[in-house]
């Protein structure tokens, strides 16, 4: 059986200021099963965002390749949806306008894309905010729009790049719950990048840890065998948290 996503020996080298070579990723090999929620956990500056951008097709790997359903990825495409750390909503579009952007670019007729957009606006809990502009929304609500926008393009794979990194702890906790709820309502293959271990255990089916400091390298893969919905204070949850922390010495 082929996996939904497979990364084979990916390495990335950026050339800085003409000649300085910066190794960001080294020998990353991982796979994501169909409809699996995979979390990539690593401290800042471990190249995890670059890895996600490579899978999204926005960067080309210096070595290795990314396979989607067994076929190599050669650029960005609507089969992979990306949720950005800094939201990247279009301030000149309303919530509805932002969410329906994907279907609109694919030429979906107006009525149909309105219906799709409304469905996902409802799914992320933003009903009643369709006509709001992004600057009228709070951080958590902005990222809800970001998630709805990615979903509305009906991708097979959702890529989330530290989506809640800019939120306060309370809102972040709510958004994690929401993410789990949304994922269970409409299952997709999810690759979720974070530097937060609680977030990783709360959401992931499996967790891939990266070693700190550049270049980013694979550390270990952890199975999270906890029933959903999960509780942060659950004994098993805390045990796993302890084990991973011990093992990785995550300095977060």
């Amino acid at each position, binding site marked *: 059986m082929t996996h939904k996503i497979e990364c084979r020996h990916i390495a990335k080298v950026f050339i800085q200021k003409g000649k300085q070579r910066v190794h960001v990723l080294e020998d990353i090999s991982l796979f994501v099963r169909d409809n699996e929620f995979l979390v990539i956990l690593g401290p800042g500056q471990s190249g995890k965002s670059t890895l996600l951008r490579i899978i999204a*097709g926005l960067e080309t790997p210096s070595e290795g390749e990314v396979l989607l359903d067994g076929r190599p990825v050669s650029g960005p495409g*609507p089969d992979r949806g990306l949720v950005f750390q800094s939201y990247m909503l*279009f*301030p000149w579009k309303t919530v509805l306008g932002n969410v329906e952007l994907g279907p609109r*670019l694919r030429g979906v007729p107006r009525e149909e894309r309105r219906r799709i957009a409304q469905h996902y606006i409802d799914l992320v809990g933003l009903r*009643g905010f369709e006509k709001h502009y992004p600057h009228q929304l709070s951080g958590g609500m902005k990222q809800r729009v970001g998630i709805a926008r990615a979903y509305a*393009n009906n991708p097979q794979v959702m890529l989330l790049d530290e989506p809640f990194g800019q939120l306060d702890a*309370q809102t972040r906790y709510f958004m994690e719950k929401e993410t789990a709820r949304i994922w269970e309502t409409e299952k997709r293959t999810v690759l979720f990048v974070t530097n937060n271990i609680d977030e990783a255990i709360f959401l992931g089916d499996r967790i891939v840890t990266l070693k700190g400091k550049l270049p980013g390298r694979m550390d270990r893969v952890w199975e999270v065998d906890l029933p959903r919905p999960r509780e942060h204070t659950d004994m098993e949850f805390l045990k796993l948290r302890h084990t991973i922390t011990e093992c990785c010495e995550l300095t977060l």
Partner: protein
Amino acid sequence: MAEMEEGIQRLGRQDRAIANEVQKSVRERRPLTLRRVITNEYVLHVVSAAAFLTLWHEVAASGVFKGGLCTPWEVVVRFRGLLTDTLAGLTLWGHIAASAQRIAIGFVLASAVAIPLGLFMALNPYVNAVVKPVFDIFKPMPPIAWVSIAILWFGVGEESKIFIIIIGTFVPCLLNAYNGIRLIDPELYDVVKVLGGNRWNEILQVSFPASFPAIFAGLQISLSLAWTCVLAAELVASRSGLGFIIVQGMKFTDAALVIGGMVMIALVAWLSSLLIAGLEKLLCPWRRDIRDL
């Protein structure tokens, strides 16, 4: 939990809540006290303006400047007269219209060429490489420096004045359109790429709307420059316009005419910039301030 539900019920009609996030709208009403009246922004505006006019009046009435300064009231009377009487065949309205028409023609022509050119330069490196050297030669040249050559080329008619306005407004229009696109966060283009859009989608969905505020900022700068240009042109040679009124006042040592002309220019320039601001509000309802980009 009960506490939270209670909290949500107490929210007003304008309030909205999602999970733990609440958007509240509150209107505050405070008692009217003398202290609040005195420190009120608008009251202070009126006090300041009244003090200025009084000072002006006293200085003018004292006769220190002899014929060089008149009282504010004399200016008002002089210009009220001009609403019906004519100066060189035109009423005040006629002179305002003459200046405004020059500005309108020059401004529209300049922005119609400069904005698309600036956008092209920012979007296409080849266009940029071709246009930039020539543009850089003209960029630092003050538009007033063109007055003499304009009169040599086009005579003292309308063409020379419109030409100077075009020269003056072209640079800021182009620069702002150019920078408007250059300063866009490249990740915004990634959004379109990831959703499956092509280069044309990127330009249409991101480049154009994102550069709107910068283009309008350029239009505002251009407009105030256009007034400077038209004034300079009219001061040198003209038979109509607000600059002409000022020159006439100077010739006949009519201080009321000079000062009134200056005030009228300020007034009309201010009104025209309000027009642009209104247009921007209409076209960019999403824009609160440029940082939101």
